Structures are given as C-alpha cells and as structure tokens.
C-alpha cells in the first residue's frame, strides 16, 4: 500500500536527526526536499541528520546568512535557506539555483514557502511544527511517492 504522507512526533533533537537519517535513505540524485516551519522547529537539524546519512561528515550550519551551503557527501548536497531571500529581487538567483536543483545532487531548501509556486513539482515536503519544548511534529509528503517502507521502519524503531 502506498501512503501519500507520514506524520511523526519526535520527542528530542536526536529523534529528529534519526528520522532525517532514515528519511535520507529514500533520497535519490536530483531529489529536492522543501522544509517549511517557523523559527526553531528543527529544519537545520533535519538537514544535518539527512546529510550525515548521505555521507557528509562536516558541520551543517544554518545557511541563513550564506543562503546556500554545499556539502560533499556521497552526492553533492545543496543546503539552501530562503529566510532572508526575497523572491522579487532574488529573480537572478532563481534560475541559477534551479539549475543546481536539477543537478545530480540532493537539494534541501529551508523556508521553502518563500520560493513561490514554481518549485519543481516533484519534491519532498517536510513540514515541522512545535509540539512542545522538545517535541516536533514532522510531516513528510510527496505526491505519488511510496512512503510505506519508511513508515514501517520508523514504527519498528519506536517499538524497540
């Protein structure tokens, strides 16, 4: 059975890192992961967990300032952050970045809601919400994508 989405509540930062690592197993070259959620919901942590699982050993820092950090994992990892980016004045970057996204790497986009409607249609969407001081509700979606195996794996993990 294929599931269109999956919602999980993580109870601590480590669980978010772990969920991200499990999620990263489903990623393929060219995938785009759009992360949405307000300040402090763990977007950067989620990318850190995924990047580690994808073979990157260095630091994953907030790209709020740099806009784009590039990590060398098993694939190139593009870590975008649109917190300070303005869609109107940022038109020049849009094309350049779309090219990167279509590249053979994996793109993570924080504050993806600021990009607007024309994000490549096939992408993962991760929505993060505060569900307590430590707890985060994390919703993972991709239309037409099977999330069954990931869901089962995570459920088994929680039972142990």
């Amino acid at each position: 059975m294929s599931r269109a989405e999956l919602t999980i509540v993580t109870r601590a930062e480590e669980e978010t890192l772990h969920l991200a690592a499990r999620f990263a197993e489903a990623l393929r070259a060219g995938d785009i992961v759009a992360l949405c959620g307000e300040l402090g919901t763990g977007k950067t942590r989620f990318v850190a967990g995924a990047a580690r699982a994808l073979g990157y050993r260095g630091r994953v820092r907030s790209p709020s300032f740099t806009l784009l950090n590039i990590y060398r994992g098993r694939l190139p990892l593009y870590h975008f952050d649109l917190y300070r980016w303005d869609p109107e004045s940022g038109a020049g970057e849009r094309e350049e970045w779309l090219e990167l996204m279509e590249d053979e790497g994996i793109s993570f986009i924080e504050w993806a809601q600021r990009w607007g409607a024309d994000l490549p249609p096939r992408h993962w969407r991760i929505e993060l919400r505060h569900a307590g001081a430590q707890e985060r509700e994390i919703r993972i979606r991709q239309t037409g994508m099977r999330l069954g195996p990931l869901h089962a794996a995570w459920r088994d993990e929680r039972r142990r």
Partner: protein
Amino acid sequence: MRVLALETSCDDTCAAVLHDHGERVALLSDLVSSQSIHAEFEGVVPELASREHLRLLGPILRRALEVAGVGLRELDAVAVTSGPGLIGSLLVGVSLAKALAYALELPVIGINHLEAHLAAPLLETGEAALAPPLVGLVASGGHTELVEVREWGRWTLLGATRDDAAGEAFDKVAKLLGLGFPGGPALARAAAGGDPRAHAFPRAWLGIERGGLDLSFSGLKTAVKLFLDDVGWPEAPADPAARKRFLADVAASFQAAVVDVLAAKLWKAAERTEIRTLLAAGGVAANQALRRTLSLGAAERGLRLVLPSPKLCGDNAAMVGMAAIHHLRRGERSGYDLAAIPNLDDWDGHYVAATAEGAAGRRAKG
C-alpha cells in the same frame, strides 16, 4: 608597497588603499558604503546586495584611490575577500579584483574574511603592539569562530558554531521582538535598562568543562521564540509600560545568554592553548555588553584583550588589505583564476584562496 583592497562578502561595499612601509602600514583610505536599502527589508536581501555591489563598487573604488591620492598605475597589488560569504556578492569583488589586477599586471590575492577580521585591530595598535600567538573570537551575522593565530596569516580553527552564528541569533530574535534591522544594535538598544536575569534563557555549553570550544545559538533562539509564544507576544503584554519593560527584559536576558557563552568559550580557549593575548572581532564585538564582560573578565584573569573600535568591527576593506600584506610580504599570491569560496569548511586548511597549484606549493613549503 601600495595595496588596493576590496570587500563585498555581505551587505557592505568596501574599498581601501594601504601603504606598507615595511615596519608600519599606513591606511590611506577606507570607504564603506552600508547598503541602507536593507533596513526596509529587515535583513540583508542577497540579490539586492550583489546588484548594489555592482552599482557601488566602481564609484567606491575610484573614491578610495582619490582619497588616498594613489593612481591605478601606482598600485602594487590588489586584495579581495574571496570567502566565506554570499556567493553572488563575493563574485562582484573577486571578478573586479581579478580584472583590475590582470589589466594592470599586478598580483591579486584572495583573503579569508575571518582572517581579515582578526587583522583589523592592527590598523589601530600597529604591528609591534599586537604580536601572535593570540586567540581570536570572530562573531558576526555569518560567523562565530574561535581561532588560534600562531603567526599572522597562519591560523587554526579551535571551535565554531554548530548551527546559527551569534549575530544571526541577534537578528532573528530582534525580528521576533519586532525590532529593526540590523538586529544587533536594535536589540542592544532595547536591552538597555532591562534586567538580564529576568528570564533564564538556556546557554549551550557543549562540553566546555572538557575543553569543548564549539558553540550553538539555535537552541537559545528557539527558547526565546517558545517563550514569546507562551506569553502571547506580540499581543501581550498590552499595557505600554509593561510592554516596554517586557521587551527590555527579554532583550537583556537574551543578550546576557549570548555574552555569557562567548566569554566563557574565549576564556576556555585561552586556557586550552595557554595563550594570553585575546582578540574579539566581527560585528558582534561592537556590542557594548560583550565588550564590558570581556574587558572585566580579561582583567580578572590577567589576560590581554584587544578590541578593535566598533567602527572596525563591522566589515571593511582596510582589514582585508592588512591581512593581505602579511601574505604579500612572504611573496604569496593567488592566480588570475582566483575563485570565490563561499563556505568556510571548503577553505580546508589553506587560507589564501590561491590556485590549486599555488596552494599545493605553499603546503609543500610547510
């Protein structure tokens, strides 16, 4: 040796001319055009930044030469910040520096922005008064790093933020509180008169008792955000006097948390390296609460602390030129294929952004 230095790594377009007399360096001109356009957007709007750099760099450069009374033909080298920073903004400076150097048949040298911040106080103290070894803290919107400098132009990273930069936390919390941009100065103003112990916001110590020198400000930012949600900010408190008090207390308590951690990590770095000269630089080093805490703490510990004047804490090209002079004196230079390196992690041990060949040559020299 006359050096033209350019700096466009973030929102300031800067150009400076320095004259190296061997024993002392004279700063002939130092121009910074803060892009006030950003205030309207409460944050640096990056594409605007690179477009503004394109518009401003030519005139600023010409003005810097004019003020210095130095003609293009009298220059001996061109220095430029080649990273870390915003890629589009960096490219404006790097491209112009290369083109200019190539046309004038001069050496071009790419300088690491962190190293430039560390060299900034030399412009005020003179080189004789501030000699390595020293430990530097660079804290700004994009950086929070502790660096050991054994020799000018040679440094190692001791610790760095694992998530947000200190200045980034200032900016983000200032935005939560509805304060203006730049967030640092706005928040510091709001904190004046507030009680830094009103709210116990968390400090991320990250193994400091075992000598851990990494930093983290993301959890602090989140704690402030959750606290404000809890209280019902910005609707509550409604009473204007209570509101003002609340804002001052939150700002002061947040600021105290940042200052406590930065200071403690700097003391720990001094202890671990057994270095007794400390330096704080970058935009956050202009923060008065931090300057006060560091000055008092250094005096108590018998350590020497050097703080550049607030004007030199922010981005400027003079510090880029100063850092470049250390390398140029040793005959180091980059190639005309100098690239911008936006991420600090990609600097990977060599701190002059040279060509692959140049970097290999320097490594071989040790």
